[in-house]
């Protein structure tokens, strides 16, 4: 089983978000970067579980500069066999997906896994784009994935329930919570990761289709209005008359 897992580098979930250069750039000062949690906890770990149960390889792919190498090494420490970095600053989703599709197109991966979105741009774009570029089926927001007899059985949360889907042959899948449990790399994994291959590949030429012009922080809340815990009728009145929420 040949599995490709896409990894994105994102700011840690506790990061206080700030912008510089006239609100055109994310302020990376003192920011801890991590593997996008959906990519790591769900896509990568489920890929490893499937490999362990069926034999095969898990390769990771990241589009980025050398500053992404530490998070790639972490994925190798968690258990990926080898890693690919397309040497290009990450631009828009289209150009990133194009790089991944160009790499994957002649490698016959059985599946390409990634998280349902990154926690920085919240795009949910790369998986569907890669699938279209490679003419593969795409299952988004999957919470379970099992393989048997060349068929993938996939569960997705739908409004008010779950749906079980079946796919034959290769596919692209974006993973949501429930797919797997986070793995903490152990010392043996960390040592082994140092000698695993991290292949740096030059980028292909592609024009981005979108760019971020500026960022804004949300306006501060006006401040909380405290209500006496013994006077819940007052809270109900405020929610009805003032907030018009009930």
């Amino acid at each position: 089983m040949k599995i490709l897992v896409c990894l994105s580098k994102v700011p840690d979930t506790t990061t206080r978000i700030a912008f510089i250069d006239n609100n055109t750039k994310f302020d990376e000062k003192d920011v801890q970067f991590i593997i996008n949690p959906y990519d790591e906890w769900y896509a990568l770990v489920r890929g490893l579980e499937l490999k362990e149960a069926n034999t095969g390889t898990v390769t990771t792919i990241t589009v980025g500069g050398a500053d992404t190498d530490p998070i790639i090494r972490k994925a190798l420490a968690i258990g990926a066999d080898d890693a690919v970095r397309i040497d290009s600053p990450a631009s828009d989703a289209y150009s990133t997906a194009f790089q991944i599709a160009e790499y994957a197109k002649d490698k016959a991966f059985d599946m390409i896994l990634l998280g349902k979105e990154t926690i920085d741009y919240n795009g949910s774009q790369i998986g569907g784009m890669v699938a279209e570029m490679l003419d593969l089926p795409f299952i988004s927001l999957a919470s379970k994935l099992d393989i048997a007899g060349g068929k993938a059985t996939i569960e997705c949360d739908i409004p008010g329930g779950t749906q079980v889907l079946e796919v034959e042959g290769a596919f692209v899948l974006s993973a949501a919570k429930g797919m797997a449990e986070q793995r903490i790399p152990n010392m043996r994994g960390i040592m082994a990761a140092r000698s695993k291959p991290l292949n740096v590949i030059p980028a292909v030429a592609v024009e981005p289709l979108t760019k971020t012009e500026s960022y804004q922080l949300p306006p501060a809340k006006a401040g909380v209005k405290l209500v006496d815990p013994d006077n819940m009728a007052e809270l109900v009145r405020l929610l009805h008359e003032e907030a018009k929420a009930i």
Partner: protein
Amino acid sequence: MSVLVFSNPNEGSFAKSALEACTYGAKVAKALGTDCHAVTYGQVSDAEIAKLGAHGATVVHKAGSLETPDSGQLSKLIATAAAACNADVILCSHDLTGKAVAPRLSARLKAGLVTGANALPTTDGGFKVNKPVFSGKAFATEVITSAKKVISLMPNSIPPENTGGTAQVQELAGDFGAKKVTVKETKKRTGTISLPDAEKVVSAGRGLKGPENWGMIEELASLLGAATACSRPVADIGWRPHHEHVGQTGVAIRPNLYFAIGISGAIQHLAGVNGSKVIVVINTDPEAPFFKAADYGVVGDAFQVVPKLTEALKAFKG
């Protein structure tokens, strides 16, 4: 040129988010001085199709014989409709289907994509669209530089507007490719309100001390017609199912009313709920960070406050 909206039917009818996308499409078309078309598929009644007309579509392209969960087929369907009406701007809802279809369509048409837009685009000095980023901790203004554009609209961003219009229906034929994904089973949870679509949400955290204490939360939720939700620790220790976990790594929601009961308000939790219009926090700890993000706060013990609130609501409803 024209604007095309993908209207995805859910079991034969259009959800509020689909009508929001249609209203959004009609407004974009008006700003660009053109018409809003819609494309749909499968078994959809004339009465449902008429809703698309009422929400601003002048023409509805319908592939009645297509029934599929395969986003590959749906992207071919939308591309076929886009070619038929010469659409430069294609819109859909940023829901489950939209999240799969919009990126495929973007790649297929080499059309720049903005997902999760929360406002109308502006065309002064480039085609620009705003969207939440960093899980709602900030917003970005994105510029689409390609000639063709795809936008998915964040649900609950603009209200659907019934303008009383009617749409002409055109049967859409074409080759939408082979179906590569099949539905084996659909399991419905009965009696609960789906969290991502809920207009009101009652959420509780570790402050409730154990899963046996959720009865009062469920009672309050059912009285409000709200969905129930929980914080990450509560889902991780198995007190509540994972699909109820709201926050940065769970479900992001933006209801009109959000109750946070016994949740301290970690930054990751706030990221998933700060799009809510009105936030009410009930917590014993007056220093809980959630109070800073709240509109209304009650400093008190949930075990006393929630039953009182339920009584007050019952009295209010008479």
